[in-house]
């Protein structure tokens, strides 16, 4: 992590937008890596930015002219991106030391002055593929662990689904906005880098998967798998591994009530385990 940058607070960001200088040049410091097992190194680029620039447009400009501040021509940086409007989750990276989506990271908010520096690093809890691109397969794997789906009777027309009140819908909708970006995992002290896929099933499943388990437990048909989900979350790497640092909810870009989900699943697991104890199964 780099010491000379910081994450602007909300009020600073508002202030920065107002005072941002048009036509300025900013410096992007990028932590680069050629591939798994290769050493990382920093490269810096000076970029004259247009109005409305974000991290993505800065990276695009660097790709068009990949010359470092030392005048060395280098390879275009590699990064993951998709929708660029903060609904796909792809372009997540660590910016000025904090994880977030790079598309919604505006230069006016983060680097309002001439020569201001912004640092870009790959997420640290997932293996780096190259430069800022990481492999988040484990995140999707964990969704399978908690059976994050509704078990329907096939895709034929079998009439309308269950009715649902607007209160429940608004709870489920909020949870369903999770875009599997992994911010909550990057910020979580209990979720650590694990290259060995055979160890994933015993490692902490993470806030996003716990919250998705809650989402599907709340659906009228989805709750048929509730017991199996709770079995998984009772075991090693389940909800009891949460250290209650509450970092997840602070970095979630969609403001999903992750700590509420963890608490709700925690209670459900307790009830489930007591019931199991008395049933003896």
């Amino acid at each position: 992590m780099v010491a000379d940058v910081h994450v602007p607070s909300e009020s600073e960001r508002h202030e920065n937008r107002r005072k941002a200088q048009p036509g300025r040049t900013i410096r992007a410091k990028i932590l680069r890596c050629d591939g798994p097992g290769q050493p990382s190194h920093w490269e810096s680029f000076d970029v004259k930015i247009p109005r409305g620039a974000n991290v993505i447009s800065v990276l695009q400009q660097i790709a068009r002219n990949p010359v470092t501040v030392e005048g060395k021509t280098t390879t275009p940086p590699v990064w993951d991106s998709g929708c660029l409007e903060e609904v796909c989750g792809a372009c997540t990276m660590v910016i000025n030391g904090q994880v977030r989506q790079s598309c919604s990271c505006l230069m006016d908010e983060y680097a309002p002055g001439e020569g201001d520096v912004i640092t870009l690093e790959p997420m640290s809890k997932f293996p780096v593929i190259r430069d800022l691109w990481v492999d988040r397969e484990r995140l999707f794997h964990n969704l399978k662990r908690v059976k994050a789906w509704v078990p329907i009777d096939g895709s034929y027309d079998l009439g309308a689904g269950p009715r649902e009140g607007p209160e429940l819908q608004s709870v489920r909708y909020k949870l369903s906005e999770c875009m599997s970006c992994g911010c909550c995992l990057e910020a979580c002290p209990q979720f650590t880098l694990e290259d060995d896929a055979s160890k994933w099933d015993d490692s902490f499943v993470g806030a996003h998967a716990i919250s998705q388990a809650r989402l599907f437990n709340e659906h009228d048909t989805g709750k048929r798998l509730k017991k199996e989900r709770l079995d998984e979350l009772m075991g090693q790497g389940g909800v009891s591994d949460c250290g209650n640092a509450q970092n997840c909810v602070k970095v979630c870009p969609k403001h999903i009530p992750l700590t509420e989900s963890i608490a709700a699943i925690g209670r459900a697991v307790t009830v489930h385990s007591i019931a199991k104890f008395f049933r003896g199964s």
Partner: protein
Amino acid sequence: MSSQQRVIIVGGGLAGLAAAVRVAEQGLPVDLFSMVPVKRSHSVCAQGGINACNEVARQQGYSEYQHFDETIYGGDYLADQPPVLEMANFAPKVIDLLARMGEPFNRTQEGFRDLRLFGGSLFKRTHFAGASTGQQLLYALDEQPRRYEAEGLVNKYEFWEFLWPILEGEGEGDDARAVGIVAQDMRTMQVRSFRSEAVVMATGGCGLVFGQSTNSVICTGGAASRCYQAGAWYANGEMIQVHPTAIPGADKCRLMSESARGEGGRVWVPRKQGDTRDPRQIAEAERWYFLEEKYPAYGNLVPRDIATREIFDVCVNQHMGVDGENQVYLDLTHKPREYLDRKLGAILEIYEKFAGDDPREMPMKIFPAVHYSMGGLWTTYKQGGYEPSSPHGDHKPGMLPPVDPEPGMGMRQGAIENSMTNINGLYAFGEVNFAYHGATRLGANALLSCIFDGLYCGMSVANYAREQQPSAQLPSETFERAVRQEEDKAKRLTESAGGAGGGSGAPDPETNPYQIAKEMGEEMTAACTVVKTEERLEQCLDTVGQLRERFSRVRLGDSAAWSNQALSFARSVGDMLILAESIAKTSLARRESRGSHYRLDYPERDDSQFLRTTISAYTPGDSDGHDVSYRDVDTGLVIPRARTYGKVESDPKAGAEKKETAATS
């Protein structure tokens, strides 16, 4: 249960996932390829909703047939009518199914699905989940193939890029059939072939051809272009939808959903040119609600091409844009905060995040941007026979069929032709085909056409594949040759690396792929979108020709044999240029105005000559490169009528009293 035959699906958005579910359900193994984890496909960007006839609308006089008619009228009659009728009839089933899968559709207080108004209709027939309907639909569908993954029926190849369709009997016209694909692992860069009995392209649109569009960065049109170069026809490529309301940005234009207008958003500019007051200080009488005045019936909800041209006209021709720039207000501030948060929260947050103003307090500033391609790979269908005694779709027993009960209605369920390209066994589903939207797509019909293709035509794919001789029995030479072709292409590009990692010296913008792409996007947006003219299109073809020449000397700047994104991008740029050329050529050839295709030099619709589908065939041997021809449109159900949406005249200097009447009518 598992069969010897298997199906390849390229693309993991709504169309691809729906197809995967349906084909796997038939017991055929599916190999699903996607450049991104499927959950990050571009379908997440769809915001507003999904159309289907519903009980409330039905009791107000709406029907599947009217949904069909609106889609045809909206598309200015360019769509073949039977598939559109089938889609409209099927739509309510899609809604039911997705709700069963857990889609959190907004609900009424009684727990029924809530509905909203959308462009091109006077009835509420759009189902929605907040303002992120596409994201929610994709997530609901994404969960379903997982159970088939566990059974080994679906294999996902994520971060694999489709490079080429493998055809057997190439060069022999109609005999060619798709027997597999060449694909590349975007991490290890391994190139290999995959065999199958059918290939479904579900690769979405080509927004990146226009540079800054509302599309995701993966929507290059590269995959469609590769099929085109391999012999598939590209149809109605000139039909590019420019969405009226987007937030201009340095990297892309972010969509501001039509649902903002569906929920009451009003488009306006100050009546006085150069009025720079805070919009909240401008009185009602001093605001020009030009859409409401010109289209008293539909108001802000005219179809997209019309709204786009009106906004374009106000800003570019009349110089009435807000602050003298190319932008107009989209105003929701008259609606209660709680209402806006519940119905539109997700998109209002996007606006706030990127533009910095709270749209609940301050009118948004928006401008049109390239959004959707109605054109795409040409596909066919088998017409259905219509028997009044055996009810079809959702026409309930006892109801009179809405048109004469004669053959030619809808599509025939499960027929192998449905959504097949001109190459046997090569199918195209979703935005990548040309089938449903004619010359303009109505809002909230895209999600429908994607899922309809996947579910309804997925059956056709399974039926086709089952009949084929297993491709495993084919000689390996066919497959090896295709792999060699792609490896050579990749090698040529990486060897040209230049710059760091390959050589020395400063990068040259002349041959930088990112720079070439940028110039292509700017030229295509300027010449080939809202207003087109012969002169400008000729110039555009020249420019694209020069860019193609520059591309032949492209220097990658990265020679890495691992996760080389520059290679993937550069290869797509070459393919995009070919598609761009075809789009410009077909725009030039269509000497009329229809739907989204507006020719200043031919402003009228000309049914006698151009009520026909444009077909572009790639002919690299010719000097022309693209052979443009036309096919008749099946207009057997609805007779074309003038597409005016009840337009009347409106003038910004008109008196306030007159304006008030128009706006509130």
